């Protein structure tokens, strides 16, 4: 569109202009061709395949699998482990998102305060972001070391007489899901902190001045100026974070593996075990499709929200 106006008629002849126009219609498609082909190969085709598998009996394994409609879905929804996995996934994701917001926002507000010197603020920001740089597997083993029954956290808690025995954080079915959620909160808050810090710096100063002229103290300024201004950003990241957290795999796989028994079974873990430990690809596909549908319905809200914000 912009190019059409740029062609000064004197410089380019009619035929040339026509050729250019023609090429202009084709050109964008040539530029997106590599990405589009990759998306067809790596997204659309696999999605069709996994939907098809979920409706078959013995997909991948049998030479001519039978079409069984929604039998696989009926089967997983009557499996208590799968239903529990949905519950764990929701608990884990919702708690993670809530605490990510709380921790991320607190850190951002503290760092944004005028009371600390700029250089200190920069250094602290670098240090506060660090957890985000670590691979899930490494996060998992760091915390397995720290939360080991003989590890440093238990040693500290016992020295302070907060607990009086060696808590098996990851291998007791009472604590495992909470320990896992805690680790995920640790690993994920920096995203919020960085985004909210950028958001805080974008809030116009005069809003605060106006509020303080109206006699609003710091708390009311936070509630009536800062939070409403940050709300669109918070909603965006929270939705994305919720979607990604629901899909969690490596962290759980490397700490509890879904155990003890099924205490931390998540939808992705259930799917993985069905496919690659038991080779029930049809069952796994059905469970993968359920996770996909939940993710995509959340994505719908995310995209709608993004459009509304712009």
């Amino acid at each position, binding site marked *: 569109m912009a190019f059409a106006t740029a062609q000064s008629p004197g410089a380019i002849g009619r035929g040339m202009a026509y050729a250019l126009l023609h090429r202009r219609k084709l050109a964008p498609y040539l530029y997106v061709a590599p990405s589009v082909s990759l998306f067809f190969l*790596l997204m659309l085709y696999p999605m069709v395949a996994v939907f098809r598998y979920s409706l078959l009996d013995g997909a991948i394994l049998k030479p001519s699998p039978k079409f069984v409609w929604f039998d696989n879905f009926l089967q997983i929804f009557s499996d208590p482990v799968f239903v529990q996995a949905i519950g764990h996934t929701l608990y884990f994701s919702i708690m993670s998102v809530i605490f990510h917001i709380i921790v991320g926002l607190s850190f951002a507000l503290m760092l944004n305060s005028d009371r600390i010197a700029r250089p200190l603020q920069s250094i*602290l920001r670098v240090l506060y972001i660090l957890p985000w740089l670590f691979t899930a597997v490494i996060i998992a083993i760091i915390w397995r070391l720290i939360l080991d029954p*003989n590890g440093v956290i238990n040693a500290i808690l016992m020295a302070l007489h907060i607990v009086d025995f060696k808590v098996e954080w990851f291998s007791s079915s009472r604590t495992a899901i909470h320990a896992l959620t805690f680790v995920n909160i640790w690993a994920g808050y920096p995203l919020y902190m960085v985004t909210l810090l950028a958001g805080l710096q974008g809030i116009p100063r005069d809003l605060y001045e106006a509020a303080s002229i109206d006699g609003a103290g710091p708390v009311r300024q936070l509630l009536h100026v800062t939070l409403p201004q940050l709300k669109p950003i918070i909603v965006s990241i929270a939705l994305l974070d919720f979607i990604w957290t629901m899909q969690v795999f490596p962290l759980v796989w490397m700490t509890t593996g879904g155990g003890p028994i099924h205490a931390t079974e998540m939808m992705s873990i259930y799917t993985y075990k069905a496919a690659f430990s038991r080779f029930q690809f049809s069952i796994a596909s059905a469970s993968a499709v359920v996770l996909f549908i939940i993710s*995509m319905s959340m994505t719908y809200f995310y995209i709608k929200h993004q459009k509304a914000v712009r």
Partner: protein
Amino acid sequence: MATVSRFERRSRLVTLLLYCGLAAGLVFACFPIVWMFFTSLKSNTEIFALPPRILPKVFTFEAYASIFSDTAKLRFFLNSYLVAGVVTLLTVVVALLAAYAFSRYEFRLKKPFNLLVISTQTVPPITLLIPYFGMVVAFGIFDTYYALILTYMVFTLPYAILLMTGYLNTLPKDLDEAVLVDGGTSWTALWRVIVPLSVPGIVATAVYTFLLAWNEFLFALTLTKSMDMRTVPIGISLLMGQHAFEWNEMMAMSVLGSLPLLILYLIAQRYFLVGMTAGSMKG
């Protein structure tokens, strides 16, 4: 007078509380990382010593020495660098082309394609994994670098395209239009004018792509099998299973496995943050 001093006192208290909060935050954020680092320098007998000590009694590099003398472990690093490097290169080029079309042209399929890019960001990897497994076997690339390089593109490309499009949109259109008016093609405009001006955008995209590829776990776990093809995250997880609990060595592996990202982060902090916030800011 009295009110001023009360105000002053309250202000000091707030500052004190703020510093306490910042200190607590620092312990929360960094204690596990510090613990990892110093554990990698302890001997294995000292790891669960009571009372726990952050610093080792005796500093030892034995964990690092044993990694550097084991070619199987070094191979994990080679694989990770290779796969992440190639994925980064391919992603940047493919994304740049797509971003150029998005930023400079109006075309009929622009909206649907944009929607496809955005929603691909949120497709669960586990959902794609099952068909990928079949595809990779069918293509005869199971347990090769190709399997990882190809499948990683599905989650690196959406970010890269969004990031690059955002960057290209900040460059004035007159620049490439000048090339067109002079009789050049859009291809020349892209490589001669746009690319040289896009270096910051390209660096941000590359850094973030590298991070995503370096950290990938699920596909690498499932689409490779032999020890020769394993990447660092899988290597660490396998070592965890085998020589259970040579903690110093596990922590040394973790330090080495985090080093590339830490170094990238420290030298290219600004670019890192661009990629990090891209998902939630743009769309």
